[in-house]
């Protein structure tokens, strides 16, 4: 299915990532965004609000984030493609309903322009410390998809990608961007509508009285209908059977909740997108995502100038995590270097997948700023030099840390 001409603002733009995501949502056929203003994500909502009426879409500013995400789940069941936009505190408020959306197998997109935390934190500056919250933030077992764009162009492209994944797997999809990418202004090329491929909703088209709302297709994803189409749906966040009726016992918990996980995990190969460079003969591999991957490029260049064989693996999809790929590489390389704007989140999944076969170096950075490429280069050198197998994640001491603590984190020395 191709994008609708009326929704696509074909042309070459010089815009920031937030705005690009708003344009991407419309191009993806999003008809409803509900949101609540929060820096640094607001420009995406503002951009969508301006262009929505022409595309037959609407933006509504709800009374809070609890309402925003509830409204988009409702609107998705009324048949619309929907998205909400938030950051930091707003993201925390949305957690319960993210799980509700996952339980109901509702396709929707959530754009999180991450800022520095915790709490109110640093509203106007960057962060990547919501990565684990994206995966585990709502209570109970479930899986969803999270992607991490690293440029305004990708915020356009990946917003469309997020909608396509949401429809295909009927799950919430998180766009885990960050303030740098959201507020960075670059060239964004919006193609013509016929060049944009869209995933249609998995509509059920059989006889209404034979519809079973949670009966999965072969790829474990069920077909959907919308409210108002005569199916007498009963949709509940309670544990339910294939009819949607509440059940309590452990057999159903196993059968049904397990499928919510399996429908993502068994389709991992189709979902995961990675960008790999010079991995063939690499001794060290930098694993990064979002703005950190842009900074890492310079660090990698510097290390190569020093003769280190270093490869680059960028996580475009962060969740589900590419376990098998990391495990396979761990058998060949000496170390992974993971720069992220937090004190260690995705790095522990890299370490988990190494099974002790390679060292793992974390290059931490608190919110409100990005790494120095020199730090990433030095971390690569450290990884290349270390011959012993270190039985923990090695925490690289950045120049900033040395400056602030005069020689290292006080607690740890």
């Amino acid at each position, binding site marked *: 299915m191709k994008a609708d001409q009326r929704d696509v603002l074909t042309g070459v733009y010089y815009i920031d990532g937030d705005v690009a995501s708003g344009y991407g949502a419309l191009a993806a056929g999003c008809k409803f965004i509900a949101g609540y203003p929060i820096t640094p994500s607001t420009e995406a909502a503002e951009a969508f609000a301006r262009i929505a009426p022409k595309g037959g879409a609407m933006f509504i500013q709800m009374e809070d984030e609890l309402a925003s995400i509830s409204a988009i789940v409702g609107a*998705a069941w*009324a048949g619309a493609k929907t998205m909400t936009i938030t950051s930091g505190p707003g993201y925390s408020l949305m957690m319960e309903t993210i799980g509700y959306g996952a339980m109901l197998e509702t396709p929707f997109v959530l754009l999180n322009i991450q800022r520095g935390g915790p709490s109110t934190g640093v509203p106007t500056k960057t962060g990547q410390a919501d990565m684990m919250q994206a995966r585990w933030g709502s209570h109970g077992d479930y899986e969803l998809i999270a992607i991490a764009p690293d440029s305004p162009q990708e915020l356009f492209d990946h917003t469309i990608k997020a909608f396509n994944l949401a429809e295909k797997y009927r799950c919430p999809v998180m766009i885990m961007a960050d303030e740098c990418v959201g507020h960075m202004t670059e060239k964004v090329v919006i193609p013509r509508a016929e060049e944009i491929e869209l995933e249609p909703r998995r509509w059920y088209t059989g006889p209404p009285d034979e519809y079973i709302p949670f009966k999965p297709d072969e790829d474990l994803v069920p077909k959907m209908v919308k409210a108002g189409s005569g199916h007498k749906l009963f949709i509940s966040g309670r544990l339910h059977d294939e009819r949607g009726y509440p059940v309590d016992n452990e057999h159903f918990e196993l059968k049904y909740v397990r499928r919510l996980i399996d429908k993502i995990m068994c389709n991992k190969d189709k979902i995961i997108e990675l960008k790999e460079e010079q991995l063939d003969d690499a001794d060290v591999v930098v694993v990064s995502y979002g703005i950190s991957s842009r900074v890492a490029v310079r660090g990698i260049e510097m290390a190569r100038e020093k003769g280190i064989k270093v490869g680059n693996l960028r996580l475009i999809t962060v969740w589900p995590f590419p376990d098998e790929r990391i495990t396979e590489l761990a058998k060949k390389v000496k170390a992974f270097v993971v720069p992220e704007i937090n004190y260690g989140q995705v790095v522990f999944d890299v370490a988990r997948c190494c099974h002790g076969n390679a060292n793992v170096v974390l290059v931490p950075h608190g919110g409100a700023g990005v790494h120095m490429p020199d730090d990433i280069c030095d971390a690569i050198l450290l990884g290349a030099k270390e011959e012993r197998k270190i039985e923990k994640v090695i925490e690289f001491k950045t120049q900033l840390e040395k400056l602030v603590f005069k020689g290292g984190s006080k607690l740890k020395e």
Partner: protein
Amino acid sequence: MQTPKTNQQKKIQVDSSSMDRIHPMENVLRMDRIPHIWCPGCGIGLAVTAFAAALEKAEIDLSKIVIVSGIGCTGRVAGYVKLDSFHTTHGRAIAFATGIKVANPDMKVVVFSGDGDLIAIGGNHFIHAARRNIDMLVVCVNNFIYAMTGGQVAPTTPLTAYATTCPFGCVEPPFNIPYLADSSGAVYVARWTTLHVRRLTNAFVEALNKKGFSVVEAISPCAQYYSRINRLGDGLDMMRYYHDNAEIRNGEDTKNLDIDFQGKIIVGKFIDRERPSYTDRYNEWLSKVKGGENEPG
């Protein structure tokens, strides 16, 4: 002798039209989910009965109605009514329903939930949906307590009444729900008890046919918690209390509708007015935007 004959004829007619039905309301109830979970003496079933009767009376296309509940004993209502039904999260029924309504304005949307769900955790959505005048009927079953979780205090618990988390009596004044709805902008506001099944049914019919944010409060016994904790007897005793203390005052100023512990309950239709609904305003605005009349600021 003429009159009883007509009555009998009428009765026979009703019977024959529902002859193939196992239950007179099986059209609108999910018979495969019965028995329900509610306790003996609970009033929620009466509110559902009134609602089911109203659905048949209001003559609206049942495939175009959505019923949305939050969480609680009353939150289970959506699961027993044979409409497109959604059982949402605690407090978010109105927000969820707002999404459905604006994404598909052809739908008739009903929110059916408890006092705690709608007025405490969901209170913000309640006042904002009223302000926007979203076209929906909100049925609030007010049993003065958090029943599902075992009898904790609610923002509707009368002063001095006991609750498990107010073991020495409630110290906070309760919300007067019709006043809250009225002052937030609702276009239809009524309160009945579950003793007034016929009037409650009529209120549902009127509210279903009303365009805009309509609120019907149904005061209802919680035999398991509220009346037991407060030593008020069982469900039937609560009905007796309603019978002796409910006073019908249609058109009463909503300011005067506070409920004291075991005091008078003023019931009736208080508000029935016109205000442009959200959808109407939106469509008018949209045509201006599209026609270039409303320029971006």
